[in-house]
């Protein structure tokens, strides 16, 4: 019923490491929540169900905990209902999570041959006998990646995660998405092995697109929690890239590089859990104090909330993969693994998709810097942009403790990377892969070697040490110099610096929005109070811009419209044209009989032609009828 192998235990550790600071933070956050009992019940059920998912040993238990995880997080979204948008977000989440559940169920029904209590190991036999393994793979990734939020199944995520109370958002973005990735690891290794090359390439492309799309929408966002949720999509994309590289190398029979990529993916899973939880907690503290999620209403919070500001800055540096942080280390490993492919592939699809993935990853990290400069700079720097921000004070002790603990966890990932990497390596050794720890650190734990041919070496401690040393020397020189200092207002061309003369978040991403307008399709609203009819003279003006998510409009809205059209015709047939209704039933009966004959009984072209003609005649005469 339960399984406690290395993979499960590492993910148990992930969930516990994520939940512990969150629990402390959540206790501090509790006075802010009105329905305390409701919230706590679902909060603990959520953590317990995630633990249940990663230790379950058969399909039934897995699906049971998976469903509890989905439902409890859905109830968490509904903790604070503010207007219709929360309900809409919750409904969307409910729909999407069950969309995924259906595919997971299908996957399990096929690979377990109906016996859902079969353990995962024995599923492999049934799966290997199944004629269409790619179908199983697609069921699996549809089921799991709709939870993880990969393109194009990511649309619900920026609505659902921000709607929950902040500690719950931190858990959902930081931990729950990783549980979906645990499923991917578990079933790809235990059930669906070996992998064809196409699966890896498919995941690689999905990952690259996910990372680009996620960060582009994060850039355009001005709701701070939605920005962070979009950035989660980006990071899932990065993890998928590493994962896909591991699969590709495994197919190409390169065991060490394969393990290297998988370890990179697992490292990034742990990293993302750390900094995304911390960022959500930071955003939650800001939200707690200012009572708004709109980034345009913050500003200048670094002076009133220094602890929050500095841990947020630390997490932002880590998520944008700036050296020497842990985010940089995992992204470095992913880059190195992709460059390991340079000399060995003969497959043209790989030769085109790997440079594309490198490009996507580099572009993503460039855009991530812009996004998090915006998120940090507009929120914490400058002058207060609203009265809410002016009255903000530092959050209570428990919330601070939660955030600082999380920051310490990130710092430990940076400073003790070898310690963590040994566990990640053990996971893949237990799954039957070659160990790479000795190759990663051949000359001591200071230098981490890449496993690609003529690969680079990175040394987080030396980088960190040298940066601290050089900065310290510069600061010391400044102190020794004893520079005379004077305080005066910021220069603003002779005008006074005021909150409304600062750059806004909308303004900050303005260039980006204009350059990517083909993707964003911004809808602009300008309202001006003109003076005496002059176009150019106005006393008051406001500019708002909204970004329509392309995927939502093109994929989801059009699917919705198609369903409406079909249901309209069905409704019309059933209610207004009752003469045709029996005719339809008759035609359907014919269709079933003929199909049975063709597919199950015996197959001949003559009967197909005759039967199709009969079908067409019946449809034409009985259903369509004469044109009026």
């Amino acid at each position, binding site marked *: 019923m339960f399984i406690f192998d290395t993979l499960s235990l590492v993910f148990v550790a992930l969930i516990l490491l994520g939940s512990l600071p969150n629990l402390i933070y959540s206790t501090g956050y509790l006075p802010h929540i009105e329905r305390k009992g409701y919230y706590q019940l679902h909060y603990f059920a959520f953590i317990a169900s995630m633990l249940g998912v990663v230790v379950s040993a058969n399909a039934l238990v897995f699906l049971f905990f998976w469903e509890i995880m989905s439902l409890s997080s859905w109830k968490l979204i509904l903790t604070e209902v503010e207007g219709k948008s929360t309900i809409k977000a919750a409904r969307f989440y409910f729909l999407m999570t069950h969309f995924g559940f259906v595919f997971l169920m299908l996957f399990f029904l096929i690979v377990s041959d109906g016996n859902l209590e079969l353990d995962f190991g024995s599923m492999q036999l049934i799966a290997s006998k199944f004629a269409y393994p790619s179908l199983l793979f697609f069921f699996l990734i549809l089921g799991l990646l709709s939870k993880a939020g990969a393109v194009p199944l990511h649309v619900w995520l920026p609505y659902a995660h921000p709607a929950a109370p902040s500690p719950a958002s931190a858990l959902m973005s930081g931990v729950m998405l990783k549980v979906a990735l645990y499923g991917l690891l578990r079933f790809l290794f235990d059930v669906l092995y070996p992998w064809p090359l196409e699966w890896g390439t498919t995941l690689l492309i999905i990952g690259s697109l996910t990372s680009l799309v996620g960060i582009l929408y994060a850039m355009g966002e001005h709701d701070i929690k939605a920005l962070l949720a979009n950035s989660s999509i980006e990071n899932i994309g990065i993890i998928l890239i590493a994962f896909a590289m591991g699969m590709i190398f495994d197919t190409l029979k390169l065991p060490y590089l394969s393990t290297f990529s998988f370890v990179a993916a697992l490292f990034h899973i742990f990293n993302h859990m750390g900094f995304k939880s911390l960022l959500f907690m930071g955003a939650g503290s800001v939200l707690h104090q200012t009572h708004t999620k709109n980034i345009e209403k913050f500003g200048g919070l670094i002076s009133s909330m220094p602890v929050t500001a500095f841990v947020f800055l630390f997490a932002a540096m880590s998520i944008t993969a700036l050296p020497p942080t842990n985010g940089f280390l995992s992204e470095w490993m992913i880059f190195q693994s992709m460059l390991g492919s340079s000399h060995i592939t003969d497959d043209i699809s790989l030769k085109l998709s790997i440079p594309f993935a490198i490009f996507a990853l580099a*572009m993503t990290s460039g855009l991530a810097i812009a996004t998090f400069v915006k998120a940090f700079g507009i929120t914490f*720097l*400058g002058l207060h942009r609203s009265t809410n921000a002016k009255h903000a004070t530092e959050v209570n002790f428990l919330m601070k403790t939660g955030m600082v603990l999380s920051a310490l966890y990130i710092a430990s990932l940076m400073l003790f990377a070898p310690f963590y990497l040994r566990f990640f390596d053990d996971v893949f050794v237990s799954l039957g892969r070659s160990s790479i720890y000795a190759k990663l650190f051949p000359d001591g734990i200071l230098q981490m070697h890449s496993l690609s041919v003529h690969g680079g070496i990175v040394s987080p401690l030396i980088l960190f040490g040298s940066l601290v040393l*050089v900065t310290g020397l510069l600061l010391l020189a400044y102190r020794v110099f004893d520079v005379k200092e004077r305080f005066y207002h910021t220069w*603003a061309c002779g005008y006074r610096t005021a909150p409304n*003369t600062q750059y806004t978040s909308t303004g900050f991403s303005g*260039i980006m929005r204009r350059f990517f307008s083909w993707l964003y399709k911004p809808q602009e609203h300008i309202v001006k109070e003109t003076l005496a009819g002059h176009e150019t003279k106005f006393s008051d003006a406001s500019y708002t811009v909204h970004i329509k998510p392309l995927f939502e409009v093109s994929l989801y809205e059009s699917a919705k419209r198609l369903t409406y059209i079909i249901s309209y015709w069905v409704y019309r047939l059933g209610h207004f044209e009752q003469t045709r209704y029996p005719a339809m039933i008759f035609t359907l009966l014919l269709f079933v009989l003929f199909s049975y004959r063709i597919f199950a009984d015996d197959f001949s072209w003559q009967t197909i032609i005759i039967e199709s003609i009969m079908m067409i005649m019946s449809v034409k005469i009985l259903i369509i009828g004469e044109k009026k």
Partner: protein
Amino acid sequence: MILYLLTVVLLILIAPILLSYIKATKMVLFFKRPISLMQGYRNFTKLLKKETIISEETSAITRYAPFLVLSPLLVTVFFLPPIVGGAYYVSFVDAFTITGLISLSTFFLMILGLDSASAFGGMGSSRESFISALVEPAMVLTIFSVSLMADNLGVGQAGVNLVAHFPKEHMASYLFAGISFFILLIAENGRIPVDNTETHLELTMVHEAMILDLTGVYLAIIETASSIKFVIFASLFASLFMPFGLEFIAPIAFVIFVLKLFIIATAVAIFEVNTAKLRIFKIPNLLGLAIVFAFLSLITFYVLGA
């Protein structure tokens, strides 16, 4: 080891001279009386003597960010390819670490721009974030493509390998990478088609807009950082795309390297004189060109092996 330290000192010392040289060359080409090559040092000492005015609207970020802008670049200088054969060099640091360190410096510069609550700072940060987001992919692709040709992902080792074995068989992708890197050199250092460091019109500024509120020592630090950034790029270009001259004895090799730096600076000056500053919305066209060349370089190497 002594040669290695000498190289680092040389690069740091020559940085302000190079920028003054570009300016002087441009003035000559405009038929003006050129400034002295020591102008960079004069500005530096003048700024050190001034008192530092700190804006009342700023926070602790302004106190620390200038140092954090400079220190990653100073660290990067230690990782550059050697300029004398047989000298010690840090062989292992790869392109991703170097781009990361440069991004770290840019990150703090952008934060600094937003700290002073001035509209110009925000404008500069916004533009810089846009430009650096587009530079990043081209930079990673280019240096990696060169590293692949040099058969080593470490930038220092790549420089040495290129000297030992010039990639004749990969000339096509080598040239593409060279073009792309030159565009990056111009874009990242705020030279004319992308940004104009000498402008006094705030609306066209990028780099200067972010540091509009700094004076005295802080400004001196930022100016030093931008000159060191130029020297990093110029020296990477010199080592990776002009791979010769390492085999001579130390003094001659130093002279050759310095000549290479001045040739690059002259090229930049001539390029600047002959182009107009681009509108911010046209910059993606230029950087798109860099990305396309970098991509072409990598694809040519991967697919054609040429």
